[in-house]
């Protein structure tokens, strides 16, 4: 199976080299970096190291970065596309577990989850994660323990959905949409690290915004997704 790892990167000059080396050393899959019009030297770092990268001329955020990655995957006929953060939080050694899960034909989407076998810590952030979990459970009846995880693997069917529907983002509400469309979503236990350099995209205000958006999207919009006949 042809596997593509999509690495969205925005202002990650300090982390990107490490992430790509991690991918190269621990997997034999193809990767593509999506440089989302970074203001720092991310592009130069990619050029210097001769990485495989696409550079967007306008910054449009994570959703757009993943979407162009999906377009690239569909164009080059990849069977599995994996969303993998460029900030060094994700570890490449777990990618093969996600791929294995899909290959064994157990599911359409595999989520790299921190809490399949581990327990959730009781922090503010995890409260948000819990709320989204509850909303998903209410709407679809399925338990997803780590809905906000940014490490997900999608099979060909899911890639096609991303290419066809521009409203899909790499976020929990899309999982609801996919489940409603009768796609199978499974979780695989992974470990994540804290980011080493650079700033996280989520500050308290943005986190609140994110939570509100997700909640409304799941409860009011994705909940009324029509099933495929």
């Amino acid at each position, binding site marked *: 199976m042809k596997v593509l790892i999509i690495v969205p990167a925005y202002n990650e000059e300090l982390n990107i080299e490490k992430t790509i080396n991690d991918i190269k050393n621990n997997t034999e899959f193809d990767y593509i970096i999506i440089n989302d019009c970074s203001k720092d030297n991310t592009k130069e770092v990619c050029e210097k190291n001769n990485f495989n990268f*696409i*550079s*967007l001329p306008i910054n449009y955020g994570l959703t757009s970065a993943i*979407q*162009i990655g999906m*377009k690239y995957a569909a164009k080059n006929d990849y069977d599995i596309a994996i969303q993998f953060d460029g900030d060094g939080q994700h570890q490449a050694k777990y990618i093969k577990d996600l791929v294995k899960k899909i290959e064994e034909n157990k599911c359409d989407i595999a989520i790299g989850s921190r809490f399949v076998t581990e327990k959730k810590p009781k922090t503010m952030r995890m409260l948000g994660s819990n709320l989204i979990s509850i909303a998903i459970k209410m709407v679809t009846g399925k338990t997803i323990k780590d809905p906000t995880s940014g490490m997900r693997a999608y099979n060909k069917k899911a890639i096609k959905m991303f290419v066809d529907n*521009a409203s899909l983002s790499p976020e929990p509400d899309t999982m609801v949409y996919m489940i409603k469309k009768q796609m199978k979503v499974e979780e695989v236990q992974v470990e994540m690290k804290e980011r080493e350099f650079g700033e996280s995209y989520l500050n308290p205000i943005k986190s609140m915004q994110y939570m509100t958006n997700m909640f409304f999207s799941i409860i009011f919009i994705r909940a009324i997704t029509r099933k495929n006949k």
Partner: protein
Amino acid sequence: MTLTLRIILIIASLFSCFLCVTRIKQAKLKIESSVVWLIGSIILILMSIFYNAVEWISAKLGFMAPVNFVFLVVIFFLLIQTFMDNIRISTLNEKIKDLDHYIALKEYDENKKHKEE
């Protein structure tokens, strides 16, 4: 409805009509989007000329004063307009994003070709 309000309404709508027509001539506004504004100002003029009708309708609908009815109509009109604008902005946003992706993928292909040569 007082005479002052009627005069203000007439002046305002005539002014917006005038603005629409001149902007179309200068090609700054598309005819399709100006039609809505023209219709809006015509309604305003009609309401100020036939104020008896407005008074009758607002009394039938239970408004405290006919002016409230006029304001309500204007507010609805503006609400619909902003909502339509919102939709237009979203569509434009999607289109720019598609262009963004198109340019990036094209550049990627060109760079790849360049490297192979």
